[in-house]
């Protein structure tokens, strides 16, 4: 059996004991008939004596509870029962000691009075013990709930990261198939063109690889990725796909969300130019306006009405922007006059 009591808890227990004894001793002052028979000084002296008696009992009760606490019993009904037993035993011992100091008149049955007082201590001590325990357990539950909430937030963050990771890790399957099938066919008919396409595609993968690894990229890297992508497709689509890049060189080092530009470029080709036999023009332009970077992808394609797809790609992009920048970033889709779609991403410029 290991007995160990920390001085802090000893001091706290003592403080609570004195305060409880003081509160209980005020019962003496609520006996109005005393004031009629005794002078005030006598009442106060009597109160002090009564306080000493109560303090004796409370002190012995707390000593017993401290002893039970020092046993470090496993929490449960047995531990509670031990504490209640300590209250009863302490009250009995304390009241017996008080009785020994100031005996009752001979005609009063001492055992009955003793029993009634112990019962009273049991009710008071039991209530106090219940309050103490409930407060402590509530505090424990509150800190556990807080801890759990923190973990949940952490998990949500990890989930968002994993989601982003999987978005980044994929290469658009249609693009991949069509390109490889084209390369395969071209090597049979026009090996030189097949080689050009394969080299461009390898260039695209080389540009895409860093994006798939990192959390944030620069506008320059994103632009390079889009350029490679468009070049690969140009081999296949020929004159049907024309593109212009208008991005000032000093903007290339600004941070930009990964694969955001790719998503818009892929959309412009897939839903804009592809449905039209004559194809069209894609313009990518970036501007710095104050502390906000605006990147615009405009096509002269089929337009909003004809644009197929479920819009999941754009919804994903919106979600990614919201995850990265909150309200500070925006994505707008509007008609590009006289025809086509104009998609605009605006992100705040980060200082670092």
């Amino acid at each position, binding site marked *: 059996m290991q007995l160990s009591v920390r001085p802090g808890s000893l001091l706290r227990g003592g403080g609570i004991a004195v305060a409880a004894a003081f509160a209980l001793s005020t019962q003496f002052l609520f006996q109005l008939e005393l004031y009629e028979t005794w002078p005030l000084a006598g009442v106060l002296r009597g109160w002090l004596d009564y306080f000493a008696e109560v303090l004796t009992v409370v002190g012995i009760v707390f000593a017993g509870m401290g002893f039970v606490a020092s046993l470090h019993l496993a929490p449960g009904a047995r531990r509670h029962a031990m504490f209640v037993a300590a209250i009863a035993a302490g009250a009995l011992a304390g009241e017996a000691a008080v009785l020994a100091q100031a005996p009752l008149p001979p005609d009063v049955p001492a055992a009955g009075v003793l029993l009634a007082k112990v019962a009273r201590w049991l009710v008071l001590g039991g209530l106090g013990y219940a309050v103490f325990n409930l407060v402590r357990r*509530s505090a424990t539950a509150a800190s556990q709930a807080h801890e759990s909430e923190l973990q949940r937030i952490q998990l949500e963050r990890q989930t968002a990261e994993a989601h982003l990771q*999987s978005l980044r890790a994929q290469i658009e399957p249609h693009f991949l198939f069509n390109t*490889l099938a084209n390369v395969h066919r071209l090597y049979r008919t026009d090996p030189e063109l097949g080689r050009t396409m394969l080299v461009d595609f390898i260039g695209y993968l080389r540009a*895409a690889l860093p994006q798939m690894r990192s959390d944030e990229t620069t506008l320059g890297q994103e632009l390079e990725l889009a350029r490679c992508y468009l070049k690969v497709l140009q081999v296949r689509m020929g004159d049907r796909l024309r593109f212009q890049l208008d991005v000032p060189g000093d903007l290339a080092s600004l941070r930009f969300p990964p694969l955001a530009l790719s998503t818009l470029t892929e959309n412009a080709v897939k839903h804009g130019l592809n449905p039209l036999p004559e194809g069209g023009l894609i313009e990518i332009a970036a501007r710095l306006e104050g502390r906000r970077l605006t990147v615009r992808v405009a096509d002269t394609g089929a337009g909003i009405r004809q644009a197929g797809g479920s819009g999941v790609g754009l919804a994903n992009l919106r979600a990614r922007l919201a995850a990265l920048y909150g309200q500070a970033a925006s994505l707008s889709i509007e008609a590009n006059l006289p025809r086509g779609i104009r998609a605009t991403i605006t992100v705040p410029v980060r200082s670092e």
Partner: protein
Amino acid sequence: MNGARPELLLSIGGGWLLGGVIALLEFAYYYPLVAPDGAGAGLLLSLVIVWGGEGMILGLAVGLFERTVWPRLLSVGQLLCAVLVGSLAGVPAWQAFVEGVLRDRFGLRRLRDYMGQPVDLASIVFYNIWLMLIFGGLAAAAYLFWQRHVRMLAQLRSAELAREESQRRLAQTQLAALRARVDPDFLFRALQCLERLYESHAADADRLMEELIAFLRTALAEERASGSALY
């Protein structure tokens, strides 16, 4: 318990129960001192009526206070107010009611009727106020902190559930991320090989390309089927 509107009847009943406990304690204390032969039952009844009524008013006060701050829990200060009002106003009111109405109607005898010497009503009121403050205060505190404890446990449980849900979602997303991956490194290296191979052994390169396309088609079809496609 969480979310249930506090019932006034419940707090009134709880108050009466508390009063009953006090009455029992008082009875145990005074019975050996004052009881004449055979008067035990009458004494106990009168104590239960007197203390039960005072406890009931205290419970009513706590219940009324609780109603005004619903749906939050009472603060410690509000609880203290309820106990003070219930004791300081409730005890004299109930004592007056017992003295003026019950005593003459039902022949109810009271503790002071049993005492040898005459006991002033005011001193009984004062003494009862003190007992009500201490016992009622403690009982109300136990009730309040028990409610807090229950509410906190419910909060903890829902937090745990939310955490488990997040954990499950994370595992799903990670699995989907793993499945959705066409290893770009692998592809990159394969295509570089192919490019070199087309220079030297075009026929081999042609066959290899067919195999690569077939492999990717299978891999991506599996990914689609598993529902992890993210488009």
